[in-house]
């Protein structure tokens, strides 16, 4: 009797609960895939039934994208994808570095923050595309304009999140730094920066999706290459299937970039996840 209860307890503690958790994960994945598959089937059925030239079927769209990427026919895709990604990452990197640097300085200094706060909030409130005409006049049609616009558009979420992160650094971390002879640079780079990193990454994620948007907009307005350029070209020449293929490509690009950033974040902030989990238990 006693033996039976003990073995019962053992099985509930070990095997089935772990198996159930695994089963739960498998179920969740299966459900997600089912929803996705269902969506594609409905899309396929509706577009086939309608026969509209504006709405090609998903099978056709994927086929077209596949042909341009791997089939070697039509547009050489790398000639457009590479400049697009270069502009996007260039603008995002410059804007992010500027946002983090200025955010650290402003967040660390109460007085600077008081002075600059209204300015920063005003800057953030300007929709970046509204500045496109100005950037065109100032910087012309080239890559500099596009990179500058992306950088300007994405700097705000990074800046605000960095300021917020630095402000909410636990004062005892800073006291510890003071006790152990931390220099000003230590204070900024070895205490405030890592302590604010979780919030900074939240800002970087927002800014990455804004960067994709601005890349497309800037290429639609003034470019001779790039995925945004292809998109607007195909629309203007009524190549609807191409247009859908580029939309799909942009979706994939955004998804891949976001996934890559999440992977980096998980690596860099491993301590943060661990510390949070440690605090929970």
């Amino acid at each position, binding site marked *: 009797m006693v033996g039976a209860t003990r073995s019962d307890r053992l099985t509930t503690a070990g095997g089935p609960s772990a198996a159930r958790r695994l089963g739960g994960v498998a179920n969740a994945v299966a459900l997600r895939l089912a929803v996705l598959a269902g969506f594609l089937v409905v899309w396929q059925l509706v577009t086939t039934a309608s026969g509209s030239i504006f709405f090609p079927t998903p099978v056709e769209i994927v086929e077209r994208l596949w042909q341009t990427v791997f089939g070697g026919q039509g547009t050489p895709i790398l000639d457009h994808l590479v400049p697009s990604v270069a502009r996007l990452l260039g603008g995002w990197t410059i804007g992010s570095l500027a946002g983090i640097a200025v955010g650290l300085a402003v967040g660390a200094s109460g007085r600077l923050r008081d002075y600059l706060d209204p300015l920063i909030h005003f800057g953030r409130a300007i929709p970046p595309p509204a500045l496109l005409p100005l950037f065109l006049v100032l910087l012309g049609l080239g890559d500099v304009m596009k990179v500058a616009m992306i950088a300007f558009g994405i700097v705000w979420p990074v800046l605000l999140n960095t300021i917020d992160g630095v402000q909410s650094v636990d004062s005892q*971390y800073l*006291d*510890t730094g003071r006790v152990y002879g931390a220099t000003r640079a230590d204070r900024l780079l070895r205490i405030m920066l890592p*302590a604010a990193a979780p919030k900074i990454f939240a800002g970087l994620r927002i800014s990455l999706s804004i960067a994709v948007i601005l890349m497309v907009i800037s290429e639609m307005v003034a470019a001779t290459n790039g995925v945004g350029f292809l998109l607007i070209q195909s629309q203007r020449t009524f190549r609807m299937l191409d247009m859908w293929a580029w939309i799909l490509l942009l979706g994939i690009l955004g998804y891949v970039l976001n996934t890559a950033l999440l992977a980096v974040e998980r690596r860099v902030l491993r*301590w*943060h996840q*661990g510390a949070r989990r440690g605090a929970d238990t």
Partner: protein
Amino acid sequence: MSATSPRSQVLLDVDHIGHVYGRGGRAEHVAIRDCSFQVRQGEFVSIVGPSGCGKTTLLRCASGLLQPTDGGVSLGAVPVAGVPRDLALVFQDYSRSLFPWLTVRRNVDFPLRHLGLAKPERAARIERSLDDVGLAGAADKYPWQLSGGMQQRVAIARALAYEPAVLLMDEPFASVDAQTRADLEDLMLAVWERHASTVLFVTHDIDESVYLADRVIVLSSSPASVVAEIEVGLPRPRDQIETRSLDAFVALRAEVARLIRAPRRA
């Protein structure tokens, strides 16, 4: 027991300090009033006072983290302005004082980066101090992978590696369980004797203050001021069971308790 000759030398001199938060304002709060005491070379001194009496403020003033509004502190006859190089502080809340983004080794290394040590000496100091606190095997773990008691050991190791002339401790064992606390007390005594260091230990626990110290400074309730200084004089090395069952220990404990509970002198 520690040598007697350098004992006479005053290391930390807290001279008539007082601290008022928000002086002149509506929320003015007198945290400490006219506190004076001295810590001599090689001494283990504890400060005991009721909870919320201003012990932490007193220690922050003594460490140079906080500039007292009255009086002054000097360390080795040099007036303290900002935290001196020769002083280290172990905080009560280890989880907010160890950096969670650094491994144990790099946490202990943090104070050593600007001391101009050669690489091997730096590594040796880290090993030695982790060894001193019994955590030689945990160097590559992160603080959050350790128990509370082990985290506080890391904080102690970090302070030891810095080799300060005086080590200040702010209720360092207040948030660990009783058994761990006893272990950490004995660890602290062993480390103090081995390094012949000087320790100023703040606690609200009367037993702990008597058990550890050569001398107990008793504080009044808020605003904190020194009520009495008691020479402990219990034999060393001390032992959790033997020392605590000595008549002298029991008598000292009762005396400190009476002093803490006594109504304020006007």
